[in-house]
């Protein structure tokens, strides 16, 4: 089934809008602020040492066909 680009754009925009609106009418957080002490621990960070993880990601991206969605923005590497 093909979806017209305009309809697709409207659906995406509406979804984003709903997400934004939900921020104003947020439900009661089910994890209270005082219950989030574990997330302040550095070991719970998805990217504890950016200088190291960015390098390792670069190593993989220059040797694999897949790239993207890792959060790192490459500056390009010819690797010729």
């Amino acid at each position: 089934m093909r979806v017209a680009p305009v309809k697709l754009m409207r659906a995406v925009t509406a979804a984003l809008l709903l997400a934004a609106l939900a921020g104003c009418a947020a439900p009661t957080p089910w994890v209270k602020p005082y219950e989030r002490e574990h997330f302040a621990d550095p070991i719970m960070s998805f990217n504890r040492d950016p200088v190291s993880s960015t390098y390792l990601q670069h190593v993989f991206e220059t040797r694999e066909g897949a790239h993207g969605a890792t959060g790192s923005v490459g500056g390009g590497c010819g690797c010729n």
Partner: protein
Amino acid sequence: MQLTREARCAHTRGAAGLSPFTRTLLTLCLIAAPALAGVLPEDRADVLWHSYNGGDITIQGPSVLVRKKVGDNLSLSANYYEDMISSASIDVKLSASPYHEKREQWSGGADYTHGKSTYSAGFITSKEPDYKANTSYFAVSQDMFGDLTTLTLGYRRGWDRVFKDGKDIATGQIVHVPFDNGLSQAIADHRGYSLSLSQILTRNAILGFNYELLTDQGYLANPYREIRFLSPGVGLGFSKAPQVYPNTRTSNAALVQLKYYLPYRAALTGQYRFFHDTWGVLAHTVELDYTHPAGKHWIFESSLRYYTQKHADFYSDLFPRANYQNFMARDRELAAFHSYTLGAGASYQFMVPGVHWINKSSANVRVDHLLVDYSDFRNALLAGTYGAGNEPLYRLNANIFQVFVSIWF
């Protein structure tokens, strides 16, 4: 809601070409404008030395990253990264000559918070003798649902200039040489559109989701590598010809991460990435990480990463004949293969005596071993022994080493 005269005029001008649906959405967006507060990254500096050794390639160099807040709402960052490359890889031995070169990369970025929103922008420039790349990026993050959820929308754009180097016969110097089409340089353009979501699930678990749509356009091949095709009775049984790549590529990548805090203060992370593109590359990545603090000073970590991909539609290790199809490649990055990466690291946290502006410091070391098993990329250097098309499949073993010092101030 009353608008000022200027606001009404601006509203009228801006909305003149918009449909009623879009105008309604824009109005609702204004109503829903953020009024909550993002969190800026910590002030820190890292100095790293990296080393890669495998497949007769050695790459090493420094990376320095500094991040500092300016006032309460702005954080600036800068990074210098360098690769010193010495290569005699299997590709180089087959189609070119061993070489040494240096790649330098500079980047600068800024993060600005306003309420619960964070705006990020930056620029990266990379330079090596035969490849120059510039990338800019912009992203907006919004904390929602009592800070349980963070939604980020991002955009990046890259402009690359590709050159082909060769030895000048008269002087012996390395100079830019023309491409096969006679041009002195080629252009590649990259764009990326991303959507990220971070969601606290329970007091011990957090979920991350990233999606990115990437488009590449222009010269996307490696100008030095060549395809090979069967030539019975000639040389080693094969001949070589330039690669022919499509000029466009559209990719979709989606990553899901789940991090869990274990009862004895340790963290377990699982992640999966799906990748697919219009060249026919289909890839899956699975990774498990375990982080274990020990005492007040040590943090140990270990990881296992598995990656597998299907080859691109126009890839072949050995084509049946010259000009077999319109697009032809033999870059092993587009071959079918799977790889394992086993990693371990240790971090020692300490205070620097007498330096009061440093809040915390750490000395870190990390070692990874990469093993790549190719399914349809053969060691063509052994064609004389085994015959073209019957050589053993290529296998890459590499050691990746990092040592770095971090300070928080």
